[in-house]
């Protein structure tokens, strides 16, 4: 299959095939990337990063996107195993759904690497993740610093989505430990998450206009929350804390009078690329750990404004650690992302 990589950055840094490490110096290495979702800004960037890194090191990446349909992801994985690739990357998913099939792959001798997927049995599988716990605690520390203990707060999130559930667990701890007064918990994840959350938060704010801070641990939701706060003219009294970052998010954060004061950030493109590198290192026999964590940083509105940052590339320049270009690299395997 022909891989479509529209990224010019990739071709610029491609190492000649012959100079690559085993097994990348011969025929293209067939890798299947089985995604739970490839849609939305985060995953689009993630996939682009993975594609760029793969193209640079002679990996032929076949991407399937289940579009949040877990049954389809199960089928995609089965079909990936049936096509007997050199390795499989799994990006997000449901443990119970994927675990038995991952075992099938391991039993069939196919190397498997997972990203942000909790497994009970990680035997023979490389596990990578961006730490939800650290992301959440990063912004929540900022929240406590801003509004103090015992403040009136609200949570806008949905249940039933693994990363959101993990972030909520951290939130619940912070609420108890800091004696926060949780006034409301609303929110949903839909096909149009940003727009569909506006009325929910709008109603909550009408009910509790004295709210001081809102935690919205998913940037699509955060955008809806910001909209609802502005709609109620409460941007001076309500602070919003989010998770994730994108060009679109930065635009919202730096807008005049934006209530979104802090977010936790990784660079999805860099992460997508790093996952592919981790796989490459392991295929080359050079990866010594089986559990790779990618660090997140907390980005505040003030930081963005002070440094005149208006998009992700400028943020990368200001915070080079986002690029992850010193994580899972080798001489023959430099970091490449879109």
């Amino acid at each position, binding site marked *: 299959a022909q891989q479509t990589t529209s990224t010019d950055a990739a071709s610029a840094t491609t190492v000649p095939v012959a100079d690559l490490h085993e097994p990348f110096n011969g025929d293209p290495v067939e890798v299947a990337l089985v995604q739970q979702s490839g849609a939305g800004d985060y995953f689009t960037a993630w996939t682009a990063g993975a594609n760029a890194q793969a193209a640079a090191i002679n990996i032929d990446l076949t991407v399937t996107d289940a579009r949040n349909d877990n049954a389809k992801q199960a089928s995609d994985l089965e079909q990936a195993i049936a096509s007997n690739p050199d390795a499989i990357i799994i990006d997000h998913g449901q443990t119970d759904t994927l675990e038995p099939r991952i075992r099938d792959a391991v039993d069939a001798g196919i190397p498997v690497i997972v990203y942000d997927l909790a497994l009970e049995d990680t035997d023979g599988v490389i596990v990578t993740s961006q730490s939800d716990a650290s992301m959440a605690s990063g912004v929540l520390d900022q929240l406590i610093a801003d509004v103090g203990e015992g403040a009136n707060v609200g949570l806008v999130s949905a249940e039933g989505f693994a990363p959101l559930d993990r972030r909520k667990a951290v939130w619940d701890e912070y609420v108890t430990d800091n004696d926060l007064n949780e006034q409301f918990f609303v929110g949903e994840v839909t096909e149009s998450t940003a*727009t569909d959350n506006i009325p929910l938060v709008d109603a909550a704010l009408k009910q509790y206009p004295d709210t001081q801070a809102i935690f919205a641990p998913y940037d699509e939701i955060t955008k809806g929350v910001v909209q609802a706060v502005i709609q109620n003219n409460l941007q001076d009294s309500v602070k919003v804390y989010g998770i994730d970052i994108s060009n679109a998010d930065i635009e*919202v954060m730096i807008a005049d009078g934006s209530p979104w004061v802090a977010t936790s950030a990784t660079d999805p493109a860099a992460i997508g690329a790093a996952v592919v590198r981790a796989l490459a290192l392991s295929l080359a026999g050079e990866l010594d750990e089986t559990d790779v964590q990618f660090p997140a940083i907390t980005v505040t509105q003030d930081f963005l404004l002070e440094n005149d940052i208006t998009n992700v590339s400028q943020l990368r320049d200001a915070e080079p650690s986002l690029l992850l270009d010193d994580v899972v690299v080798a001489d023959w395997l430099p970091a490449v992302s879109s």
Partner: protein
Amino acid sequence: MTTLTVVSSRPIGERVLDGVAKWGFVAVTVALIAFFMITEPNFRTVDNVFGMLKYIAPVGIAGLGVTLAMTVGGLDLSVGANAGFAVSIAAWTLVVAGQVGGVAVGVVLLSGALIGALNAVLIVFAKIPDLLATLAVMFTVVGLKLIIVDGKSISSQMTLADGTTAPGRFTEDFLWFDRGMIGPVSVPVILFVALTALVWFILDRTRWGRALSAVGSNPHAARLAGIKVRAYRAAAYIGCGILASVAGLLLAARIGQGDVSAGNSLLLDAVAVALVGVSVLGIGRPNAWGTALGAVLIAVMVTGFSMMGLPYYIQDFGKGIVLLVALLFSFTFRRRATTISAGSTTAS
């Protein structure tokens, strides 16, 4: 010669039943509003009322489009895709092409009309049944949108493919479509009410509306009565496309960026309010005020239930139950059976 029969006055019982059928849905809505007003002090505020209307405006306007399509006996499954396309194309015009709001509005309306025209050509000239044609257009338009924007949301200051920063941004005059006020009322609310009145006026008061419903109720007979059936069907789909793109315009101004997921959930809502509109006032056919009322009912439920602090999943259940009760009032107690023609799967 034959004489006119005198109408005898109808028994009370029947009149009560007719009243229930006619006003049952409205009564449920009013009862719900009253309930929320009593239990939730914040529900009563003027701000909240306008807030609800503002929130529901895009759904209501897209629903008006569906009402048009239903009037000619069809259904348009591409309204959500159309609105989503409008969001992205508006963002592209403003941010990437760096144009002002007026240009973006023009581009959006044009794209809506073109998508409507594509539906019209497929249905009227290529004779593909409306449900199938609009389904195919839905996929195509969603795909086209994503191809144009490369699957990404467009926002100001984004880096373009050539490495430069996008020159434009969402201009104030464009954002006015969400934030602007005329007197105490915001622009989306005014647009919603104005478009409802316009669609009502056209459908109910003008000869063109008459012709549209004639086409919907018996196209064959309409043709023999001298109605240009194909032109009217085409016009209805183009009108529907334009209304869908207006809904997209409001969404774009609200989100303030070219959110790729915008519009996805609009289809079901728009079809739902148009369907509810058929029954709301006991009219039994697609109508503008009914559709608007259907939209308001949904907004009231979403806002009221949220204020009560119910989790979203109890809201779904509540929506279902309220809808059921209202439907029971509207149809079960009515003496004449109604069938809603909502699209066909066979060529006409």
